[in-house]
């Protein structure tokens, strides 16, 4: 069965420090890959996505993610975290070529930013 693992439930970083959030997926082929962010009390906003091509993708708010096929990973990074980045981050996959491309979500990583 397809699954998405976000091993870090909660991460705390200092403002200005770098950030990496981990995401691993289990799927027979390369799926579509997404990172969403959810600010407190808000819906989900798409940060970035990977379908094919260049394995390093740029997103909004200064985030980037790198797809590594050999590790079945799609880790999210940001070189310098801002206090406004405090939120919950979800990795999601959609099977390539699926008729409805239903998203399978990880359990999320809650990011806290220290001043």
């Amino acid at each position: 069965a397809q699954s998405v693992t976000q091993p870090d439930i909660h991460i705390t970083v200092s403002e200005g420090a770098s950030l990496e959030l981990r995401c691993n997926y289990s799927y027979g082929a390369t799926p579509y890959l997404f990172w969403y962010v959810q600010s407190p009390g808000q819906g989900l906003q798409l940060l970035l996505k990977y379908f094919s091509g260049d394995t390093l993708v740029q997103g909004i708010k200064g985030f980037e993610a790198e797809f590594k096929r050999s590790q079945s990973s799609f880790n999210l990074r940001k070189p310098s975290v801002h206090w406004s980045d405090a939120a919950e981050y979800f990795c999601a996959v959609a099977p390539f070529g699926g008729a409805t491309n239903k998203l399978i979500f990880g359990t999320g990583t809650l990011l806290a930013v220290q001043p």
Partner: protein
Amino acid sequence: NAGVTQTPKFRILKIGQSMTLQCTQDMNHNYMYWYRQDPGMGLKLIYYSVGAGITDKGEVPNGYNVSRSTTEDFPLRLELAAPSQTSVYFCASKSGTEETQYFGPGTRLLVL
């Protein structure tokens, strides 16, 4: 262009009551989805629709019903509310030509 809108934002129900969560999108998307989000569990798919008149079950459909009479609207019905349905519910939509799902702001439901 409002995107995906959901009403109400928050609701308290008593056990056994019924209610309908409304979802509307103005992007002419064929695909629509209902998810529930529980703490530490991520989002789970309840029902989805690939177009008007076509719906199908997701991962956690028990206790819910949906209908899709128009492209714009995809209401979620709870017939007999149970405490286990206390959750945050998100509606999402996407077009048939791209893979990105767009989410509404959510409905927070408390069943007591």
